[in-house]
């Protein structure tokens, strides 16, 4: 009987009995012992670190917004109840705006949520709630949010009609006679008497009972320039001058519009602007013409400029660097202008000049239009890359970000409620950190937890196998 495999393997193993096995047993044991203990300490340290991170994560997850920072200067409206988030992170899952809930800190347009991209309400602790709003920035009506974050005006994604919704009480007022004329509704003959076009901002009255919009009759005359919708369901056309640009509310019963007039050889330039106070009772009161301290060649004049300050005493309007597309009602502002002139509404005198980052660019870069609103709240913004995505809001007084947004959200619009930035900051342990890990800590923790489970499972299997194998 010849050799078998077991004998041949034993013979092969005998090769080791020859010269060459130079390492002594004490050396082998000492080296292995040293390596093993180092590895043990490393594993223990890692486990402790992961456990600490997990505890931190639980605390952050369970107690969102528990740490309030020092509030910014008092809110113009006097409200102190509304606050703002310090971080707006991309959520793992999307939830709709509940019928009743807390006031919203902001309205945002996210273009980084895939099929869930669109308009969102931002809660005071940074949560995102999907809004039932039709269209985006280019083809929709921009939602309006009241100063206290309670009242939301929007065009509904279902029937295309305008609605005013109280996010606290859940009461919704629908306006069957007011719908959007934005795409795709503009392709059909509207069945409602009043239409609101795309890229139109709305303004909620200080008492939250009305919304003012730039609108028009859907017939041939197009005579109505400003509509006031009440939470009682009323629709009140205010002015028949389509040259008006709506700027906001002077008080609970008066809206402020600005009338532009072209002059000079270049008819694209708007050189004279006259504020007009339009009362709900039908009164029309012309205010002093805006007078720059030094002559200007023209204003950037559109639905985004001019803009009324939250305290309703000042009016801001931009000067476009390239002023050739800034005619009245053009709806697009102009060029890359970065200078904003601030006028006193009562006297028409220029009281301030400020530099902002391209506040009135064409609406193809949506965030620029949003920048105007933030500018009035004593804040400026910057993006990554600048001008494309809103990633932070920083008070101009400090320059430090008061709010940061996840770049993955691709926020093309972030309109804070008037009172939000002045209210308490709902912070988290991550503060305003914007590094990659700060936005992906949940994924990192999940990966670490998975590795821990994998390691523990493997260790358990090894121990079980050792017990079985040694039997």
């Amino acid at each position: 009987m010849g050799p078998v495999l077991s004998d041949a393997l034993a013979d092969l193993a005998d090769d080791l009995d020859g010269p060459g096995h130079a390492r002594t047993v004490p050396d082998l044991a000492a080296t292995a012992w040293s390596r093993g203990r180092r590895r043990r300490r490393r594993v223990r340290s890692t486990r402790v670190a992961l456990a600490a991170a997990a505890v931190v994560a639980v605390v952050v997850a369970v107690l969102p917004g528990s740490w309030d920072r020092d509030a910014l200067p008092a809110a113009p409206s006097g409200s102190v109840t509304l606050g703002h988030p310090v971080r707006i992170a991309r959520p793992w899952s999307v939830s709709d705006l509940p019928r009743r809930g807390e006031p919203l800190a902001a309205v945002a347009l996210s273009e980084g949520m895939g099929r869930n991209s669109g308009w969102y309400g931002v809660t005071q602790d940074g949560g995102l709630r999907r809004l039932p709003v039709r269209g985006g920035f280019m083809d929709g009506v921009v939602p309006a949010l009241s100063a206290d974050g309670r009242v939301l005006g929007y065009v509904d994604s279902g029937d295309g009609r305008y609605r005013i919704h109280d996010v606290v009480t859940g009461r919704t007022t629908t306006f069957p006679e007011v719908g959007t004329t934005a795409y795709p509704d503009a392709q059909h003959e509207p069945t409602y008497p009043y239409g609101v076009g795309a890229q139109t901002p709305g303004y909620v009255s200080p008492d939250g009972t009305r919304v003012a919009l730039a609108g028009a009759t859907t017939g041939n005359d197009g005579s109505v320039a400003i509509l006031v919708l009440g939470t009682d369901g009323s629709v009140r056309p205010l002015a028949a001058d389509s040259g008006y640009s709506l700027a906001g509310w002077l008080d609970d019963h008066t809206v402020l519009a600005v009338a532009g007039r072209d002059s000079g050889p270049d008819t694209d330039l708007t050189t004279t602007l006259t504020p007009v106070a339009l009362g709900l009772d039908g009164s029309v009161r012309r205010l002093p013409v805006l007078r720059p301290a030094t002559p200007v060649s023209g204003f950037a004049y559109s639905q985004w400029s001019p803009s009324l300050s939250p305290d309703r005493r000042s009016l801001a309007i931009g000067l476009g660097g390239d002023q050739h597309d800034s005619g009245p009602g053009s709806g697009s502002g102009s060029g890359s202008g970065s200078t904003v002139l601030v006028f006193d509404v009562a006297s028409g005198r220029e009281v301030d000049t400020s530099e902002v980052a391209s506040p009135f660019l064409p609406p193809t870069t949506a965030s620029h239009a949003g920048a105007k609103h933030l500018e009035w709240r004593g804040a400026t913004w910057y993006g990554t890359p600048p001008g494309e995505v809103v990633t932070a809001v920083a008070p101009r007084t400090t320059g430090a970000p008061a709010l940061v947004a996840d770049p993955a959200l691709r926020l093309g619009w972030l309109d804070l409620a008037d009172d939000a930035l002045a209210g308490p900051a709902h912070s988290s342990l991550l503060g305003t950190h914007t590094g990659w890990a700060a936005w992906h800590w949940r994924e990192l923790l999940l990966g670490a937890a998975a590795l821990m489970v994998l390691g523990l499972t493997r260790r358990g299997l090894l121990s079980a196998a050792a017990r079985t194998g040694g039997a």
Partner: protein
Amino acid sequence: MRAQFDVMGGVGQEGMAGFERFVQSRSGTLLRTAYLLSGDRHLAEDLLQDTLAKVAQHWEAVEEEGNPEAYARTVLYHRAVDTWRMRLRRPRVVGEPALEPTDGADLSAESERRLLLQAALGRLTPKQRAVLVLRFYEDRTEAQAAAVLGCSVSTVKTTTRDALKRLRVTAPELVELTDRLVVT
């Protein structure tokens, strides 16, 4: 040096002494297995060193369970199957000795068979080699081999069958070693 272990590892000298006794008594046997698994003397030493470090890492628990060698063998086989670890350290083909003697010596039949077997083992997958070593060198049952490798008995059977088949194809000269082996 021992005192340093005590301070840094928090383990008494007794633990280190016990580990050293274990290495003293079992390292030779483990090294032979490691050699069959890796096909190379230096790789075998690395594999054993790595295995012993793992045992040292869990020495208290392993010693308490009362069978350090069983744990060490399990670790050894698992590390051998995870060949990527060894390749990372020593990027070379494992277990590929020359098929022909280079010194022109007239080798005996046993020596020639040993070289052929070593080369043929080198052409198996690490898991196939591990199964053969467990079944025919350590003389483990299929169930015991499955327990060590952490797989099912049927996997052990399949792997053994495949390994023997490959041995017969790659080294037909060694058919006498395998022709009487039957895998159920």
